[in-house]
């Protein structure tokens, strides 16, 4: 304290009235707005604008090279009577539900496995990520070869083992083609689910497991009563994303089957692309894309309710 009193007084700067500009410079809301602008610009130009344009296009008869006119819901009425469109809706739902369910099962299993103490744990965790790292088109091409009607390694192996006598027409048969694309999607999607759930598992304090063990829980009971309930929030997040990615999948299908055979693997995204870009009917393609919105909104609503903070997560934290 003493040295402050001893220090020589500095000449005071003259106090002037704060101008409106000065006040604005110190206004936190004004400053905050400018920090928000870049993110807002991104969202508007890259998300809101394309989405709005897509929806607008779906109400026009735009073709490539020709400005369209507003035609009301004609595109949708047309789609309503289009069997191929409904087949693609069915395919998309089948693809999404089957692939997501299996991805969840395998992902959870892998996450639990990788959470155990075992040799080469770090390396195994890295290995699990490989399908996720490989570019989708590249892995799709690999699968294309694996499932090729003539050169398929699976057919070749099975033939040499004497199990089958003829090549399996993996991508030429409607059922096989569906199984193959779902398989490829699972292969590609499992790492995301597994690694995210693993991260969730690692936030569970080991002492909870120990306490449950002392309370007399078997391994299954520990999973059922401790691990699974504590993991539900992260499961809701990861499965929402997984469902959204699967529902809107395009690359894998396009690279492997282009929607064939006989539209058996056409998803809404691939059909939309085919109609809009390949066939040039931008309006109709946009209508197919826009038809995905209700499904996606439904998925988001489900996750919204799933993600609501559970009662046990509420209340202040006294840690």
């Amino acid at each position: 304290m003493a040295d402050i009193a001893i220090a020589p007084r500095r000449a005071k700067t003259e106090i002037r009235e704060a101008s409106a500009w000065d006040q604005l410079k110190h206004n936190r809301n004004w400053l905050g707005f400018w920090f928000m602008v870049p993110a807002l610009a991104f969202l508007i130009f890259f998300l809101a604008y394309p989405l709005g344009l897509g929806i607008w296009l779906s109400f026009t008869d735009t073709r490539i090279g020709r400005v369209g006119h507003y035609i009301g819901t004609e595109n949708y009425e047309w789609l309503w009577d289009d069997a191929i469109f409904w087949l693609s809706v069915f395919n998309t739902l089948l693809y999404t539900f089957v692939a997501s369910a299996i991805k969840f099962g395998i992902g959870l299993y892998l996450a639990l496995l990788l959470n155990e103490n075992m040799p080469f744990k770090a390396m195994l965790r890295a290995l699990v990520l490989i399908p996720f790292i490989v570019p989708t088109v590249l892995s799709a091409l690999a699968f294309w070869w694996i499932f090729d009607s003539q050169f398929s390694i699976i057919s070749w192996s099975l033939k040499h083992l004497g199990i089958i006598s003829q090549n399996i027409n993996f991508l030429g048969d409607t059922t096989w083609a569906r199984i193959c694309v779902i398989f490829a999607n699972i292969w590609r999607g499992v790492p995301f689910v597994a690694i995210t759930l693993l991260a969730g598992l690692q936030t569970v304090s080991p002492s909870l497991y120990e306490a449950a063990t002392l309370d007399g829980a078997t391994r299954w009971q520990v999973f059922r009563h401790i691990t699974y309930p504590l993991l539900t929030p992260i499961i809701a997040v990861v499965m929402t994303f997984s469902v959204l990615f699967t529902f809107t999948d395009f690359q894998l299908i396009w690279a492997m089957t282009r929607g064939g055979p006989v539209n058996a693997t056409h998803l809404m995204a691939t059909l939309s692309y085919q109609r809009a870009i390949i066939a040039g009917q931008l309006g109709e393609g946009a209508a197919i894309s826009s038809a995905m919105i209700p499904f996606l909104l439904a998925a988001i609503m489900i996750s919204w309710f799933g993600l609501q903070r559970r009662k046990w997560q509420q209340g202040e934290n006294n840690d």
Partner: protein
Amino acid sequence: MSSVQIRDVRKSFGNFEVLHGVSIPIEDGEFVVLVGPSGCGKSTLLRMLAGLENITSGTISIGDRVVNNVQPKERDIAMVFQNYALYPHMTVADNMGFSLKLRGAKPEEISTGVKRAAEILALTPLLDRYPRQLSGGQRQRVAMGRAIVRDPQVFLFDEPLSNLDAKLRVAMRTEIKELHQRLKTTTVYVTHDQIEAMTMADKIVVMHDGIVEQMGTPLELYDSPANQFVAGFIGSPAMNFLKGKVKSNGSAGFEGPNGVKLPLATAPANSDGQPAVYGVRPEHFTIADDGAEAEIVVVEPTGSETQVFAKLGGEQVVAVFRERHQFSPGDKVRLKPDPSLVHLFDETTGKRLNG
């Protein structure tokens, strides 16, 4: 309730041995505190008792049963963890009733058990809350409630109070002790805080570097520590140690640092000139004309007593007085240790030399 026998227990993690043959007998209904600095192996020993760690060699028995290869849930013990380990997604009632539920008890049975424990711990109004909605002390009580509900043979506490603030810690200390007096369940309590050990224990086990340094009642450990480590660990402020030589020619005495003369009631036989460590507790100093001269460095009054840090023969010592002396830094005082309460330790082994 059961007795517990720990016999020559060793524990190694890989090639690294952390417990070097520990034997502790625990009687039925006894409150035993394992105390020691961090890394002494006390928590590991407790976890071995709970069955959360394997026993490398030696035996642990609960009652008449050797439990080395018995699953944790079959050992009939309950543990209170340092972070409480409450299940965050369960209400207080569900947390407390979880073990009964797993045992397949009927819902009425569970709610009776939970209510009984909740009454003992005054948790009844909180039964529907979630752990996040509780304060630290309340969580601590829920963790104890979860242990009580099970009515186990042995309670294990792993540093249960170290996450609480100082005031609450003192209150919970009393509560745990009272609980033990009421339930009379054999208890093993691990802490690094010697005050907790002194205030709660029937028997204190002082551990250090994987061995038991001394076992005994709190006052035994305080009055006659077996070695310099125990002497320095038990008691607050810690015992003062002064290096020097024993004098037993003529009357017994001790020559401290820089030739300071210190009193000694009796010298060990044949010990004239033997280098030793002279230990005196801060509360055993008095101001006397025949004391050794010391210069006061810092005076810390706490109200009930005053701690005085002083230089005695160039070494800093601390003395505690209940009387209110008017000291200020720089004052010269004559400090005299009470010769009957002085401790003498071997300079190299640290073993106690006087009776």
